[in-house]
């Protein structure tokens, strides 16, 4: 497909779908933002599942292999 063909489709599109480059926001959305924050409060500790999995693995390793604890302290 040539650039000319792309330009043909572009011209057709621009006749059917008007560009919106000069559209401005007409009101302040902060009150709406505050409402959303109140309705959907964020979790206090936003820890991903991957971090929880790593922490669980580390805890399990310490539990089942307590012999590594002195080695861990030595390396700290």
């Amino acid at each position, binding site marked *: *497909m040539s650039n000319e*063909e*792309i330009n*043909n*489709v*572009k011209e*057709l*599109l*621009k*006749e*059917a*779908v*008007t*560009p*919106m*480059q000069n*559209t*401005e*926001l007409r*009101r*302040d*959305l*902060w009150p*709406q*933002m505050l409402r*959303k*924050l109140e309705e*959907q409060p*964020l979790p206090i500790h*936003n820890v991903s599942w991957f971090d929880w999995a790593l922490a669980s693995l580390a805890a399990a390793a310490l539990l089942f292999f307590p012999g590594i604890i002195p080695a861990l302290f030595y390396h700290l």
Partner: protein
Amino acid sequence: MELLERFAVGDLEAFEVLFRQHQKEVYAWTVRIVRDTGIAEDLTVETFWRIYKHRSQFRPDGNFRAWTRRIATNAALDHLRHARQETTLSENLPSPPRPDGAVGQETRDSIRRAFQDLPAKYRLVATLALVEEENYADIAQAAGISESLVKVRVFRAVRMLRKKLNFLRPEVAAK
């Protein structure tokens, strides 16, 4: 402490300042993708909700504007994906007078339908590149893809449109 540092640790006042600084720009970018003022307003709020939610991932020495635009693009893309069958190109905005003669109303409707039927990721790049005439580098940065992938998607979108228009009205595609 700087504004972005305060925002990153969850200071709501800093977030409000950033919101007021950037809401117009986020809205202007979003409305060009979704083409509906009401939906664009909701998505602007959704964008800032995501920004606040992931504030700890933002590095205060990073580019807040670019990060914001990327999140806004993802929010708009999610909307296009979910509302693909329901959304119409409402064009609820004042539009410049169109020259008659080039293509008629029926043809414009066919083109609009074909455009609306594009898969979301193609519609996103086609809207920004072909209708809004954004440059490929800006689209790539906003969508989090390479510039060459933007070109590929524009090319495929054009090919899909031509195919649909051929099917709908052969004389349109032949223009």
